[in-house]
């Protein structure tokens, strides 16, 4: 008889599907960080002087800063001199039609088509391998609408004014330790600009892959939705299985001007480490949006199943009157994974509205913390927030912790907060079994039911992916379809 206990035990034997290493020759800057390394990164990327200065300034901030220690996570010291800050595949194509075959093969294996006639026909993809972008699809088609979608490096070359104007607008160089490090050494990432009044006709998407050993990944994404525009953007990520921890410290900046709407979805599947906690990605990410325009809207949706450690709080600052911020998140921790995630909603404009839906699933020895802050500043009259924050526990060795911070300085604010912690109960599993459904399929079903409000916000084809990913990361493969 398969009992809930056995299901729990099975969950411990997690399998990670993207853990292989592709054999691609890479050009790597030797390990360590100092001003010369930063100059070298900038030189290789043929950057303008102002950007080099910006990097150096960031580096000087970083040297004075300390790693934050307030999060509910524990890990050994990170040796910042033991990391290589730049790795680029040697073979180089010059456009999407000339992607080197070994790189194409790697993305094919991941199921990410780099050809425009590929599977995800309605999605434009920018593929970032280690430190550089290797391909961007559908660029020409988007350009006809005035949409700029390219790798960050390319944007620096082709649209320097735009990049210079907005870089650091949302996340200042000295915002926090990891953001400062990223600002100093960021290698590549994606850039998107949607001109006024344009509704982007396809999903824009970036696929990040760490391949090289002992390197960190420090990508930077900048998206600007100009007045009255709309864009939906998706990022996905995977990494090989390695016994050493690898550092990922990204920065994402989103800007929405008047009447613009920007949706940003993440499916994060970095290597989580093995079941004893060996290896895995340390994911320290700063993601923030500024809804500066009137009636603008920024929405974060994220499904986090990977990484040994996740430290991430996608946030929205609502500056424009009637602007909106949303956060929909599912985070799964299994085995020895730790996650300290959540969001921060800052209300500045009048009649601003924010919604937080957070769903945490803990299994194995996984530890999960939800940290959410809602701040309503003086003058943000009529501000409203709705927060719902639920935890689901599978087994009794995992944990879920919730830290909601609320700061209300305007008396007209309306706040609503709901929280729950539940366990997948023996009685729920038995009820399903009594209807002919195996405990594995039942757990799968219960987990999906739990995540539904978040999945509903993902673009359709990714909702299906996300659902599968959760099944895999909890090791619940069954037959219910």
């Amino acid at each position: 008889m398969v009992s809930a206990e056995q299901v729990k035990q099975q969950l411990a034997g997690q399998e990670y599907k993207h853990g292989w290493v592709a054999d691609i020759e890479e050009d790597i800057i030797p390990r360590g960080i100092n001003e010369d390394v930063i100059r070298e990164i900038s030189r290789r990327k043929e950057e303008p002087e102002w950007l080099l200065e910006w990097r150096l300034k960031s580096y000087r901030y970083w040297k004075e800063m300390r790693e934050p220690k307030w999060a509910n996570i524990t890990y050994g010291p990170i040796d910042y001199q033991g990391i290589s800050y730049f790795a680029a595949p040697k073979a180089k194509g010059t456009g999407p039609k000339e992607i080197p075959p070994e790189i194409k093969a790697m993305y094919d294996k991941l199921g990410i088509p780099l050809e425009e006639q590929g599977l995800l026909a309605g999605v434009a993809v920018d593929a970032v391998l280690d430190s550089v972008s290797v391909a961007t699809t559908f660029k020409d088609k988007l350009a006809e609408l005035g949409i700029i979608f390219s790798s960050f490096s390319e944007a620096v070359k082709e649209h320097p004014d735009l990049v210079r104007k907005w870089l650091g607008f949302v996340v200042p160089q000295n915002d926090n330790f990891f953001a400062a490090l990223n600002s100093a050494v960021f290698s590549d990432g994606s850039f998107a600009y949607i001109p006024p009044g344009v509704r982007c006709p396809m999903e824009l998407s970036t696929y990040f892959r760490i391949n090289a050993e002992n390197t960190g990944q420090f990508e930077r994404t900048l998206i600007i939705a100009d007045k009255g525009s709309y864009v939906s953007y998706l990022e996905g990520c995977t990494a090989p299985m390695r016994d050493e921890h690898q550092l990922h410290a990204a920065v994402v900046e989103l800007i929405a001007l008047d009447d613009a709407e920007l949706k940003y979805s993440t499916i994060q599947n970095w290597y989580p480490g093995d079941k004893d906690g060996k290896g895995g990605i340390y994911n320290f990410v700063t993601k923030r949006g500024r809804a500066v325009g009137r009636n603008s809207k920024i929405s974060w949706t994220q499904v986090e199943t990977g990484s040994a450690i996740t430290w991430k709080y996608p946030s929205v600052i609502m500056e424009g009157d009637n602007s909106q911020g949303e956060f929909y998140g599912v985070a799964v921790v299994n085995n020895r994974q730790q996650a300290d995630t959540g969001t921060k909603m800052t209300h500045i404009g009048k009649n601003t509205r924010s919604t937080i839906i957070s769903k945490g699933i803990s299994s194995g020895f996984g530890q999960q913390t939800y940290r959410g802050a809602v701040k309503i500043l003086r003058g943000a009259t009529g501000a409203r927030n709705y927060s719902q924050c639920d935890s689901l526990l599978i087994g009794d060795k995992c944990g879920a912790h919730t830290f909601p911070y609320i700061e209300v300085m305007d008396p007209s604010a309306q706040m609503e907060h709901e929280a729950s912690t539940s366990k997948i109960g023996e009685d729920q599993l038995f009820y399903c079994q009594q209807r002919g459904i195996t405990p594995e399929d039942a757990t799968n079903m219960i987990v999906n039911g739990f995540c539904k409000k978040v999945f509903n916000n993902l673009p359709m084809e990714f909702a299906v992916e996300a659902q599968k990913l959760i099944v895999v990361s909890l090791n619940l493969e069954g037959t219910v379809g």
Partner: protein
Amino acid sequence: MAAPMLEIRDVHASVGDKPILKGVDLVANAGEVHAIMGPNGSGKSTLANVLAGRPNFTVTQGQVHYMGRNLLAMKPEDRAREGVFMAFQYPVEIPGVNNAYFLKSALNAMRRYRGEEELDAIEFLSLIEEKLKLLGLDESFTKRGLNEGFSGGEKKRNEIFQLLVLQPKLAILDETDSGLDIDALKIVANGVNMMRSPERTTLLVTHYQRILNYIQPDVVHVLVDGRIVKSGGNELAHELEKHGYAQFEAAAKVA
């Protein structure tokens, strides 16, 4: 002669360490309806759960045969797939899991097991349409989370809805009549009667003679302190209604 649908022989069972069933004997043939009555805590739900295979309900002695096969050796989900259905006294809620999706998954799991073609969404919807009508349930009922925020009566009706869709061979209904208003009671009784056929058997756990006015049982059993102390026809139910369980409880203590 074919083996009985259900043959319970001297079953002793514990929940955790606590012995609850103390030697239950019961034989039910295909086509029969058996009512099981008894005071609170006498072990009726325990018996139902033992038959369905709930974890932690341990059979310490005795045997159960279902159509001649050793029921106790089967996994709970396989018992269900072989046609054993239990309507729960307290159906659980599973938030976010669509009621119809759940039932379709259950039905298809059973169909797969039997080597039958799975039903697609359209076939399934046409299958449930008439059953919903029969039970006086609105279609919106299927779109809600499984028992999520259902009233007590709605939960019970949902159990009968599942019964009608899954068409089991052995239905164990644990106090499905409790908490129903008189109209709902008739509807539920009607549903159970529809399932009555020479190939099916129903065990009806109840506290009230009332439902037996609508569903005529072939046999009525009285379960007291983990044992069946008396079996008889429908008149036994009337007698219990009048005099309660006192005489049997006294007898059980002596035994």
